[in-house]
């Protein structure tokens, strides 16, 4: 510190550049140690099963992963922020389980070439996991203000929709779904990023108009309906996103967006009537879509009776059910499940769409319940951060981000178990996939940043939206 700023100077300078006081995070370190122990035992279990002698599976991969966690922990200690200490260990546990699963699947499911050498499934997943942890940690350390999110919510929304449209026009088709955008060597699935953008937009819009949504009614005869005009722009935005997603045949993302939309509206207004209207609309919409689109009808038919076409459309779902059945209570053990059919695992797309079924076979229902418990912990942390937040935008943002992870995990777990029709979303932090891992890392990073009590105060409300001004004069 060469120059000391005068006392009257504004204190809003970014403190990243100022003096930093390290703050110990013992809770996080203790939990991370437990994660390391559990993963080492898991690796021992896997290695012993696969090779037939006692030994760890892929010591190097495990060491790299645990090293990355340690670096993330130390970086947060040095940054000295009072952020949440449970989120990182919880995510680390899920990521570690993902790593164990990917090490055990056939490595040629995914082969990527970087800098002249090729990497198999586990190596690529390890790279993305470390990337996700890096994204979460960096955001958790650096983000000290949320005005860049709340000020530009319409810009974010437009960018998100633009990204989706771009995918629709320029995207590459994989398995009949046009979801992937490729720029030279980089490819990604924009719908993963769009879910974060959608939460930012909804949190911004709802926090600005919450008071009006709670207070006013549109009366149609004896019915007291919520103020429809104020919902119109939001519903329009949602319909655009949903329409594109349905046209792209990405039903999982559509379900996820809808769930997050309803949950956030309920969190913001506390009005069950809105949720009921939404559910009725959803049922009508799905019935219409099942009649209109072949691919939706197929999914629903498979859900109702997968055994009608056991070697065709129902094959994946039936194999997953068999996997759960083989797993039973305690599972067959890591590395011992999944009999291979012609050198491949019996379930197609097991590393992206069915990791829950694979874990169900190897860890049993006991292991699955623990994994679902870890997701619940992440959701609880997010809700808690939301309740403690100083203003509506932050609290809705935290709640929305946590629910994105929770609802997504529910949709795909329920799809694997044939509780819901199967839709192709990823299991957060466990499925293979760079876009998914990085987007979820982004979610956790934002939650970490929001959990800091000493965060910069909310910025003054900007110019009001037109809807709100109308409401003010009408409220007289």
């Amino acid at each position, binding site marked *: 510190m060469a120059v000391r700023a005068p006392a009257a100077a504004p204190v809003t300078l970014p403190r990243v550049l100022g003096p930093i006081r390290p703050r110990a995070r013992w809770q996080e370190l203790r939990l991370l140690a437990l994660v390391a122990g559990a993963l080492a035992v898991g690796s021992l279990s896997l290695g012993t099963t696969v090779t037939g002698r006692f030994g760890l599976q892929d010591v190097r991969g495990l060491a790299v992963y645990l090293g990355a966690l340690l670096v993330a922990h130390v970086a947060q200690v040095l940054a000295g922020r009072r952020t949440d200490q449970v989120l990182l260990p919880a995510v680390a546990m899920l990521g570690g389980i993902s790593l164990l699963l990917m090490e055990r699947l056939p490595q040629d499911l995914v082969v990527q070439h970087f800098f002249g050498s090729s990497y198999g499934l586990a190596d690529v997943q390890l790279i993305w996991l470390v990337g996700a942890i890096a994204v979460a940690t960096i955001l958790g350390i650096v983000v000290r203000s949320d005005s860049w999110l709340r000020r530009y919510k319409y810009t974010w929304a437009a960018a998100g929709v633009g990204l989706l449209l771009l995918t629709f026009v320029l995207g590459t088709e994989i398995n009949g779904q046009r979801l992937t955008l490729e720029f030279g060597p980089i490819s990604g699935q924009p719908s993963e990023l769009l879910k974060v953008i959608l939460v930012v937009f909804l949190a911004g819009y709802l926090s600005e108009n919450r008071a009006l949504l*709670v207070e006013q009614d549109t009366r149609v005869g004896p019915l007291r309906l919520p103020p429809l005009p104020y919902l119109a722009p939001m519903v329009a935005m949602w319909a655009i996103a949903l329409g594109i997603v349905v046209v792209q045949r990405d039903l999982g993302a559509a379900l996820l967006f809808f769930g997050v939309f309803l949950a956030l509206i309920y969190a913001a207004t506390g009005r069950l009537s809105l949720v009921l209207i939404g559910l009725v609309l959803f049922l009508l919409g799905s019935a219409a879509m099942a009649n209109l689109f072949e691919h939706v009808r197929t999914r629903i038919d498979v859900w109702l009776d997968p055994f009608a076409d056991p070697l065709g459309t129902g094959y994946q779902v039936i194999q997953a059910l068999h996997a759960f059945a083989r797993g039973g209570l305690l*599972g067959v053990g890591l590395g011992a499940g999944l009999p291979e059919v012609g050198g491949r695992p019996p379930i197609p797309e097991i590393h992206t769409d069915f990791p829950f079924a694979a874990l169900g076979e190897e860890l049993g229902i006991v292991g699955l319940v623990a994994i679902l*418990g870890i997701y619940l912990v992440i959701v609880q942390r997010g809700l*808690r951060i939301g309740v403690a937040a100083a203003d509506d*935008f932050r609290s809705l943002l935290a709640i929305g981000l946590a629910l994105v992870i929770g609802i997504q995990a529910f949709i795909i777990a329920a799809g694997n178990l044939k509780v819901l029709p199967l839709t192709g979303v990823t299991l957060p932090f466990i499925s293979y996939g760079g876009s998914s891992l990085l987007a979820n890392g982004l979610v956790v990073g934002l939650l970490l940043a929001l959990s800091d009590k000493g965060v910069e105060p*909310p910025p003054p409300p900007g110019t009001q939206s037109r809807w709100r001004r109308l409401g003010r*004069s009408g409220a007289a």
Partner: protein
Amino acid sequence: MDGFTLVLWAVRLVFLLLLYLFLARVIRVLLRDLRAAAREPAQRPGRLVVLESPAGEPAVGRSFGLDVITSLGRDVNNAIVIDDPFASAEHAVLTYRGRNWYLEDLDSTNGSYVNGHPINGVAALGYGDEVQIGQVRMRLERT
């Protein structure tokens, strides 16, 4: 069942056990956090933080805990006394009804403002909104 198989099963069970140990530890942390939050003194529904006050009373940065009904104005009998030449004696009332905040202007001479816009009678507020009485600007925050 030879020794190898037995040990392998033990290792598998230990892995599941460690998963649950981790979960139990995490839940203990969460419970402690929730209990600490429950022990805090009964919470007021919100607070007003003074952002700008040319006359110096109330001072900038001061935070007022709010009751369900809080009166604002220049008169000393108000819950929040705003000693500003542009504030009326009984200027406005902040109320918390249902799960919403409302600001009601009591026919003050210079009016009340929310986020820079004058209000007509009653206006609904959200956390993070700014209230202006006379020249004093305040922000409504969750406690």
